[in-house]
């Protein structure tokens, strides 16, 4: 009998549900399934899942609608399942409060990683003072960043950007979210800021800025801080 967190799957396609169950049960998660949006919304209340996997291609309701209904009731982390070339829908959902997304067909390893990230984020660990991964270390209290032991000089904005990533490891951050957090609500359309500053940050902390391993681009959506 599994005792891990309850995960609610909202997907109308039986093969996807089976695939998700096969993937989630071995690590110990408890899986509940809903086959359409209405059922999903109601089960999100009754089953009290710790995480929801929501497929955008539902027959009865728009995925965004389902998300809104869920968000009215709770802050349960939601991972969106979508198809290719639907970046607009994904961004809309992320802006409405979804935590992350996966594009079908996805790798099960990625799915498990995202689930872990989302669950971890739900229980924020504000006690971390120093973040270390590989040869990068960020001292959040002292605002010092070290790479390979050497101090890296970052501007205030660059540091804020890095800190935002460090506080959200593995989670996708949309341009809008980044702009809103770092620059403020009036800057949410100025995506050139994110591009330029991310570029500069990469230059300073990545071994190979053209092949970044920390700050990874999520095509058309935003960025993800990947950990080792």
């Amino acid at each position, binding site marked *: 009998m599994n005792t891990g967190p309850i995960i609610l799957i909202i997907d109308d396609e039986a093969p996807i549900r089976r695939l998700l169950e096969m993937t989630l049960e071995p690590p110990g998660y408890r899986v509940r399934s809903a086959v359409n949006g209405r059922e999903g919304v109601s089960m999100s209340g009754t089953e009290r899942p710790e995480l929801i996997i929501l497929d955008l291609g539902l027959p009865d309701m728009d995925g965004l609608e389902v998300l809104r209904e869920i968000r009215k009731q709770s802050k349960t982390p939601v991972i969106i399942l979508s198809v*290719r070339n639907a970046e607009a829908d994904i961004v809309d959902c992320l802006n409405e409060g979804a935590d992350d997304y996966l594009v079908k067909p996805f790798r099960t390893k990625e799915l498990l990683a995202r689930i872990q990230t989302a669950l971890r984020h739900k229980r924020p660990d504000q006690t971390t003072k120093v973040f270390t991964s590989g040869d990068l270390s960020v001292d959040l209290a002292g605002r010092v960043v070290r790479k390979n032991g050497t101090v890296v000089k970052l501007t205030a904005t660059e540091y804020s950007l890095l800190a935002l990533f460090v506080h959200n490891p593995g989670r996708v951050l949309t341009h809008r979210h980044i702009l809103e957090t770092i620059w403020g609500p009036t800057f949410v359309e100025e995506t050139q*800021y994110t591009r330029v500053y991310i*570029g500069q940050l990469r230059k300073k902390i990545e071994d190979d800025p053209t092949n970044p391993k920390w700050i990874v681009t999520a*095509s058309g959506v935003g960025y993800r801080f990947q950990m080792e």
Partner: protein
Amino acid sequence: MTRNPLRFPSAIIEYGIAVTVVIGVALLCYPISSTVGYRSVSLILLLVTALLALKLSRGPVLAASIVAALAWNYLFIPPLFTFTMGHLDDAVMFAAFILVAAVTGNLTARIRERELLVIEREKRTAALFALTKDLSSARSQDDVVHAAINHVGSVFGADVCVLVGEPDGDMKAPPRVTGSWEPQDHELEAAAWSYWNERSSGRNCADFPDILATFNPISGPRYPLGVIGIRPRADAVLAVEQRSLMDNFIAQIASAIEREMLNELTKRASVLAETERLYNTVLNSISHELRTPIAAILGAAENLDAVHEDGKSPPTKMLTEEIHTAAQRLNRVISNLLDMSRLESGTIRLRTDWCDVRDLVQASVRASSQELHGHPLSIDCREDIPLIRGAFGLLEQAVANLLVNAAVHTPPHTPIAVVVHAGADNVTISVIDEGPGIAANALNHIFEKFYRVAGTPSGGTGLGLPIARGFIEAHHGTVTASNRDSGGTEMTIVLPVREKASA
């Protein structure tokens, strides 16, 4: 319907001219008659009659002869101012004068009439020739009808309309009409009757004689093709010679219309055949591309379940990898088909945003990592490449397609390079390989759907490059391919930079 510029009945005028001229000349000769003698005057009057015959018809010429004779008698034969003749030789001369005048006049008139006939015939031949010339240079049914309207209009002074039947021999109601006049309902009735009965109707015909227009059927080899309607502009009757010319005209026009109809049918048939051929080729190609990985998946899946005779378990890792690879290939084929579909239907709506080109290249490399496996990859991207506006996903796909193409068409382990440059008002991304290059005459064709360079291994949907071009062109950019001097191919994307990001 011969053209007559005179407004009054011409006969009266001609008689008037004849008598006036003769009397005028006679009076003019009066003063000189004493010098030259009255007999010479007769010759002058004879000449005048002959000259009049060149211009007037027979009746007036005869009248002129008689008036001339009488005038000569009255004014010149003594005793003067009487119609009596004193001498016998004068009486003989008088009689001879009348005869000669009449005969000369008649002959001259006949010559003139012949001449007029010849001119008339020449005009008709010229008209027919001009019509035939125009008809033979017509390139469509509309051209034919145009020519018909022009020529029938100018030669016969009539309006033309052509009603065309359907390709299967039917005539719609209301029928398709082109021409310089629109037939009314009662005229259409006559036209339809002509079509179905393949006989003329209208004015001067047995059927529907009370309408102004005439309708003549255009008969094809198997069934009627249509109807030509002619409606005279002035109320005139078609002269007999004109009637046969009209028939000739109609025959020429009918044959030209038939010719154009057949041309049209042939063209349509060949387009249909070509479309079918292309359709079949595409279906076969897609079918193959989809079925091959499916076969691999099914085969591997079956084997996973199998128990070998010697009790050994199947090599699961290898089989699952096969399933994985085949499934990814299937995914790529389907993505390509969907992308191509989007491009064809024109539903690409760019959601543009600022894009970092380095980011773009990196994303493209990751997207094509499976195909690039084994090829050493180098990325040369300077730091000052400006941000460009575009749809990240589409641009990523385009670059990825170029990378996949390079990987698939070059031998394993050959290097592939991506070079990014910033120009004055553009950004170029080049994918360079060290493969066998592309035949010069194929360089532009490779961006066409389903094009395969002869001799290259089949595989892939043949859509990767066209999709890349489609996506780039949606950004007002260009993609070109060229062979490098040092061997290999270079594919270059040029994207315009219209605004600079201010950050």
